[in-house]
């Protein structure tokens, strides 16, 4: 009996196949990318870019738990990112030496990664506890307000955070000697590259890839668990979920806290990676960009969200800023005068906002369900058609 049922789970299998394909391609790309890009460009600039993109992937995976799984709209996600980044920055730099504390802390990165995670989760819980009983849109507004307050606080408490001057010279992670081992480094037995975060962007790249892989596995586990189902149930019908014995407040709080912890985690990584943390890096635009990554990729579907994050990162941080340069070279190659070339390039520079805004609108109009929607969202849109069909079939049966 049950075997016959499970052989019929073909739709679900197809989805899983698609995920497997996406993950395999991503894995191969992740492995090939550093070598290929270093070989092609003779530099590691692209690898650094990829690392930064990876930070956004991590953020998008975390926000997907909140927005995609539990259906809670968070418009201030960058606040937790900021909290994570400052948690690491303040305790792994000389910043606090010139603060009223008069003492510089240099706590290890590997410890602070998890401290940042818990600090951000705690902030999420503090914010979420009184507000999660509110209706969906009110939560969005509260998070929006929170997202506006947090960077401003880091800016205002300049005695501690340096305010507008930012926290610089943040410690780089170090690995214990035994990991380096005799097989790496400059010794005679060198097999692999020396793993040195100080000057090597590839080290950060490898680290973010490992973190992303871990995040995918953990979030996937949650998705296919008691808690994941409870999140979806709340997203679908909160009253019915409560009637089934789900404590909606704590369940939502868990989604909110877990989402925040991802953001804090990513923030600590970001702080170590760029070694400079300023309040300007965590403005509303960051929250929105991550949200768009989630929606664009297909809410609720982890592989889709990763694709969405990569695509949008490429567009926002690479394609659009690079446009004037491309326009210039294109204009040169078709032989326009240098005057025209320059004004064209300038014009494109001024078009950044228009292009980004236009892309957002066009994307949503063309694919409101995202690039790789979860089965749910796809269905939601097809639903009307299906119901009509069913009604027709039922009518036939009835007569």
């Amino acid at each position: 009996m049950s075997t016959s049922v499970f052989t019929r789970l073909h739709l679900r299998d197809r989805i899983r196949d698609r995920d497997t394909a996406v993950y395999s391609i991503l894995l191969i790309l992740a492995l090939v990318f550093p070598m290929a890009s270093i070989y092609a460009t003779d530099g590691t600039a692209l690898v650094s870019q990829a690392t930064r993109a990876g930070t956004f992937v991590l953020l998008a995976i975390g926000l997907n738990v909140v927005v995609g799984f539990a259906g809670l709209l968070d418009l201030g996600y960058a606040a937790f990112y900021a909290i994570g980044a400052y948690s690491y920055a303040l305790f792994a730099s000389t910043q606090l030496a010139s603060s009223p504390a008069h003492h510089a802390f240099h706590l290890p990165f590997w410890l602070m990664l998890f401290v940042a995670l818990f600090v951000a989760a705690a902030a999420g819980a503090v914010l979420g506890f009184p507000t999660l009983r509110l209706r969906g849109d009110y939560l969005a507004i509260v998070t929006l307000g929170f997202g506006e307050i947090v960077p401003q606080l880091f800016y205002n408490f300049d005695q501690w955070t340096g305010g507008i001057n930012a926290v610089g010279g943040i410690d780089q992670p170090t690995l214990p000697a035994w990991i380096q081992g005799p097989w790496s480094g400059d010794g005679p037995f060198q097999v692999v590259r020396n793993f040195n975060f100080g000057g090597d962007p590839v080290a950060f790249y490898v680290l973010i890839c490992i973190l992303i892989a871990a995040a995918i596995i953990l979030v996937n586990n949650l998705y296919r668990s008691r808690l994941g189902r409870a999140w979806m149930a709340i997203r679908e019908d909160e009253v019915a979920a409560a009637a089934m014995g789900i404590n909606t407040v704590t369940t939502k709080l868990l989604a909110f806290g877990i989402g925040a912890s991802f953001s804090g985690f990513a923030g600590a990584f970001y702080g170590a990676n760029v070694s400079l943390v300023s309040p300007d890096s965590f403005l509303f635009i960051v929250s929105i960009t991550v949200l768009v990554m989630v929606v664009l990729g297909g809410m609720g579907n982890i592989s889709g969200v990763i694709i969405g994050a990569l695509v949008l990162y490429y567009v926002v941080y690479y394609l659009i800023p690079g446009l004037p340069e491309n326009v210039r070279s294109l204009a040169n190659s078709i032989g326009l005068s240098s005057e025209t070339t320059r004004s064209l390039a300038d014009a494109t520079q001024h078009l950044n906002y228009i292009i980004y805004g236009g892309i957002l609108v066009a994307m949503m109009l063309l694919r409101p369900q995202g690039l790789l929607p979860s089965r749910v969202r796809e269905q939601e849109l097809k639903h009307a058609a299906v119901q009509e069909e069913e009604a027709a079939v039922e009518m036939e049966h009835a007569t």
Partner: protein
Amino acid sequence: MSLPDFGFYVLCATAIVLLAAQAVIHPGEFVQVFIFGLTQGSIYALVALGYTMVYGIIELINFAHGDVFTLGAYVGSAILGFFAISEGGFTTVNLIALLLVFPAVMLVMGGINVAIERVAYRPLRNAPRLAPLITAIGMSFFLEGVMFLWHGPATVHFPDILPKAATTVAGVFFGFKDVFVVVVAAILVALLAIFINRTKLGKAMRATAQDRDAAQLMGIDINRTIAATFFIGALLAGAGGMIWGLYYNTVYYQLGFRSGLIAFTAAVFGGIGNIPGAALGGLIIGLIAAFSDSYIGSKWTQVVVFGILIGVLVFRPTGLLGMRVPEK
């Protein structure tokens, strides 16, 4: 009295007592700040009305609305350039220009907003709820981009054509501009109230906000009603932009982002979807911002305003005038 209510009243009472203390100690400064808050608040009120009307009818946080407001100032500045206005004084030409340009800007912004609704929101009316939110953000960037392309990142001068008349009563400065802002805003809000309550279209808007399907069954043209909502919201935002320009004489392309968020806070404060609430909320937020600027420090104003936003939602989720809706 429930705990949230109690918290709300305690917060209000504390704020009032602290302000009253200031009023007694430095009455002159207090009144000056109060007047400034009132003018600022009048503008926020006009913008907040657009947010609340759109939210009330299609439950969309229209992020582009603040930029429609700013664009109003840009357009107004451009059209005023066609007139032989004289800045720094008040001439007949100035008056004629003002009387022609003010409604023109409102209509232009109304038209633009209807076009935005048609292109970016209407096709997504049955899409997942986040889709129109994202297009609203996209439209916001788009409008900012248009203004950026138009005048670049620097601030833009807006002609200073209002009379400079002013008096000083007991050390408090009253300018004609202050009176102008408050009076124009009050007239517009009164007209809106009459429109919403007396006209057929206004009633259709209220009915659609209550229950879109039922309104449709009653023969109300939903698309037309929603378009009308966007049109009226933008009329007020355009007027707000004009007033802002006339008062401050300077605008820049990202003005709409921050003031839009503050106006939105005002809408929430008054109870989102509630029209008198938005007007009142705008005034109160304007006052709070002004008091915070001068008594706490302007770098804390943003924290204060958004802190209040969170506080209101926690202690009184339906806003100042919002009705308590039982959750089904």
